[in-house]
């Protein structure tokens, strides 16, 4: 059995941050591959700017530098060091904030169940009670996945810890910025709570989750009292370290929010009841029904995060006549009304003036804006929809001083659209995140397709050999170069690819490498996915090695 002590390692924020740092190989030159930005200063001109939902500024300029918005105004003087972006006919909105998202967060490794495991009294971690874990610690940036969110206009996301039990850990806010940076904005943002369990052991159902929460709360308060007593009195025995209770102290003190995930109206009522019994700061995540509780939520000033997921309409297409039972018409009528109820929920929160946010959790990316538009068709104002993606989540996260609107001093997080937001043909043209520019326009996509950089790694007997492949398409013909560590020990070498064959699903080429003794002929061939390659590297007269490569995603350099 693994001892409890092994689980009781305290997690210091510093360690967490260190773990998140993507330690990139330090290059010999300051910019050996030419990827560094020419400037960190940008000047967006003549755009329609919506700095906050209630304002529109026509033909305005924005200057942002080093990730911060410096100036907004009309006919600003173009700074000499700034890269200019023509914003004519474009609409600029604050970057969207996703209040609940699990992309990139890995499930923590839980201790193994001992041989004499007692399912009625498991260790807290095994029971899914690990508030001392954090999403930040288990977050691994996968740019390919995060870019999907950024492409939709999201520049910040609150990452939720992954775990099946009631207290999976604390949340973190990350920036969807340059993947080479550490993009953790706030750690230990809130404590995440869900009404779910690892079934088959205690707590097994919501019944025991509620009871367990009461006990945890009371014992946290007692634990804090014990710690204070111990500090001021030497005759009291040592207090055993309890990472679970330690992690909950900020919640009972009202310093950290309990973010409670709700899947139903009954969950929502249970969460309110929890707060009635034991006071704490409460935000409800994923609200998808329960308009009857709106007055209560309003009076108690409970934070609300609505789900962007909407039910499918299963009532418009009717069943074949033969399958229609008695009262079919009446049933369909009620079904339609219930469906409508789901679509109008957001507008009801708006009418009640509850400043809610949105979470993408459980929603397919392709449905996000479709659902937002459905809500708008059903009474939600565009202004409130925008506020729920920007200003409101910033406030609920306590980061409104640096985020949620476009104003000097705030982070340069913006979405540049081709038309006004929620209009039919509006497309995301660019996303500015943490001051980095990501170009998602059609032109950029074409250029991107014609200019590719891949990172490869080959397993050789002397260790991993790494480098890049660069492909350029000219007149429908691919040309390429490869970089590798010179066997002569003279740094990074670059060679032209010969016999390059690149199709949708296959890639092969050869190149030569000079060593001190000879010239080696190397061929590479294998299977190609859109973003991944797997194949063999064959060195003539020597051996064959495995090579893996992935297409590099990077801030587009069109405007840099």
């Amino acid at each position, binding site marked *: 059995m693994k001892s409890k002590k092994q689980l009781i390692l305290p997690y210091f924020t510093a360690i967490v941050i260190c773990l998140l740092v993507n330690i990139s190989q330090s290059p010999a030159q300051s910019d050996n591959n030419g990827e560094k930005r020419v400037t960190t200063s940008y000047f967006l001109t003549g755009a329609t700017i919506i700095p906050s939902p209630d304002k529109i500024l026509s033909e305005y300029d924005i200057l942002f530098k080093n990730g911060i918005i410096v100036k907004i105004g009309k006919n600003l003087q173009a700074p000499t060091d700034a890269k200019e972006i023509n914003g004519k006919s474009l609409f600029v909105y604050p970057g969207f904030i996703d209040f609940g998202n699990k992309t990139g967060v890995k499930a923590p490794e839980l201790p193994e169940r001992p041989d004499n495991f007692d399912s009625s009294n498991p260790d807290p971690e095994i029971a899914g009670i690990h508030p001392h874990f954090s999403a930040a610690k288990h977050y691994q940036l996968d740019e390919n996945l995060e870019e999907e969110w950024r492409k939709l206009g999201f520049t910040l996301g609150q990452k939720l810890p992954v775990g099946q039990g009631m207290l999976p850990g604390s949340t973190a806010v990350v920036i969807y910025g340059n993947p080479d940076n550490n993009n953790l904005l706030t750690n230990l943002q809130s404590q995440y709570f869900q009404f779910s369990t690892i079934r088959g052991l205690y707590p097994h159902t919501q019944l025991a989750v509620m009871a367990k929460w*009461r006990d945890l709360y009371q014992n946290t308060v007692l634990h804090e009292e014990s710690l204070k007593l111990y500090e001021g009195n030497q005759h009291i025995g040592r207090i055993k370290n309890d990472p679970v209770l330690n992690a909950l102290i900020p919640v009972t003190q009202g310093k950290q929010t309990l973010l409670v995930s709700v899947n139903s109206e009954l969950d929502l009522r249970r969460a309110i009841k929890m707060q009635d019994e034991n006071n704490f700061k409460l935000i409800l995540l994923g609200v998808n029904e329960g308009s009857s509780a709106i007055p209560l939520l309003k009076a108690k000033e409970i934070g609300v995060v609505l789900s962007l997921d909407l039910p499918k309409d299963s009532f418009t297409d009717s069943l074949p006549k033969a399958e229609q039972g008695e009262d079919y018409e009446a049933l369909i009528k009620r079904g339609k009304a219930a*469906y409508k109820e789901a679509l109008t929920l957001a507008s009801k929160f708006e009418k009640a003036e509850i400043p809610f946010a949105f979470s993408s959790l459980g929603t397919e990316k392709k449905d996000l804006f479709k659902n937002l538009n459905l809500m708008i068709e059903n009474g939600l104002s565009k202004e409130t929809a925008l506020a729920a993606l920007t200003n409101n989540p910033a406030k609920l996260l306590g980061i409104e001083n640096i985020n949620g609107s476009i104003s000097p001093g705030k982070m340069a997080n913006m979405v540049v659209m081709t038309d006004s937001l929620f209009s039919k043909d509006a497309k995301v043209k660019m996303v500015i995140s943490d001051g980095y520019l990501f170009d998602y326009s059609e032109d950029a996509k074409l250029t991107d397709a014609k200019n590719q950089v891949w990172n490869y790694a080959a397993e050789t007997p002397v260790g991993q050999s790494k480098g890049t492949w660069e492909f350029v398409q000219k007149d429908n013909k691919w040309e390429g170069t490869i970089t590798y560590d010179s066997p002569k020990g003279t740094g990074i070498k670059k060679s032209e690819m010969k016999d390059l064959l690149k199709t949708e699903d296959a890639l092969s080429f050869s190149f030569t490498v000079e060593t001190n003794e000879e010239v080696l002929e190397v061929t590479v061939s294998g299977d190609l996915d859109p973003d991944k390659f797997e194949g063999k590297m064959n060195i003539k007269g020597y051996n064959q090695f495995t090579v893996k490569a992935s297409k590099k995603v990077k801030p587009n350099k069109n405007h840099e």
Partner: protein
Amino acid sequence: MNKKLLLLAGLIIWLGTEGFSQKNPVADVLIKNAHVITITNGTLEDTDVLIQDGIIKEIGANLKAKKNIPVVDATGQYLMPGIIDAHSHLALEIINEASSPITSEVQMRDVIDPFDISIYRALAGGTTISHAMHGSANVIGGQNVTLKLRYGTADPEKLIMEEAPRTIKFALGENPTRVHGIGKNLQPRSRMGVEAVIRNGFEEALQYKRVWAKWEKDKQDKKINSTPPKYNSRLQTLVDILEGEIIIHCHSYRADEIYMLIQVCQEYGIDKIVFSHVNEGFKVAPELAKYTMGASVFSDWWAYKFEVYYSTAYNAAILTKNGVVTSINSDSDELIRHLYHEAAKTQRYGGLSDDEALALITINPAKQLGIDQFVGSIEVGKQADLVLFDKHPLSIYAIPQITWVDGVKYFDRASDEADQRLKINVKRSPDPFLLSTGTHNCMQDVDMLFTENQHY
């Protein structure tokens, strides 16, 4: 702050909270010319019952009501107290927390489902109060909740009968031994183990009480030399049982196990205990009469597993004649719709009188739930939970016409719409065959992990 402002602020706060701590709905009604079956005072012919603010105000002839009080002409019809079911799992999202032999900390009031269509169906069968119980997977299960069937609210709290005392579920015999002993290799594996689990629980609770008492005293005397003890709501609940604050409702079948628990309770000074099912209760009827708050039985359900073979339909009558406070329960969302039929069976098997038979589903379950001062009979001052039948409720032809809870009409056969759902599951297709609800049972939520076969 000046006084006026302070007053104003106070008023605003009061108004603010008033909106949400609303009292449960009550109403006025005058029911005229009914055969009034009072249960405690015989049947009064051609009698009026006046209800004001949900309370029975007057019973008598030719009562006059204020102008706008609705009047129901019940000429030739039978008015009786709302039916009370002392053992039900109606309106619960979850029934068993089957993960530990003792789960006294869990509370059924946390998982009330006000949208359960079965609530309406129970009302249509004249039932106004159900005792929403934890299942029988654990030796000491969760704390139950007594519900008033105020169908129509989305707020689970609004169904709770706040006046009702706390109750808790115990279970003896095959269910807990199968779930924990056979299923998970924990105690109890036998009936002896069941007793040991209860005794150990009570002993731990006594220790827990002592530890806290010492801490509180040290704190008072300012002689603190330790940190506070841990809070444990499981043991605290057992302490509350030992202190007489909670009524035990115990799932049981066999006479030996019933007598075992009577002895254990005697030893620990517990007298608030009701036995449920109690199929062999007739064998220990005098003991049940002397030491317990009664027995709540099925009219004629048995032989669904080994421990329930030795049974008789005369059980309720034998218990009644021996002075046991006896009730007939449903333990079923279906049976709860016609408990008056179940009560009538005691006339065929045992020859109970009308009042004795109807007491089994009204005042007696009220006594077992500790709410007989509020409900269970038609008396001035009691809550107006009533049901009007077209014929005598013990007749097989009787059909409930109107059901009131606190004077509020929740069922009226004359205006009974087909679709009474409060909530539509939009994820479900409108296929009418999928619209029926499942029924609840004693072993629900006990995963296959714990038990190979599902049993009641």
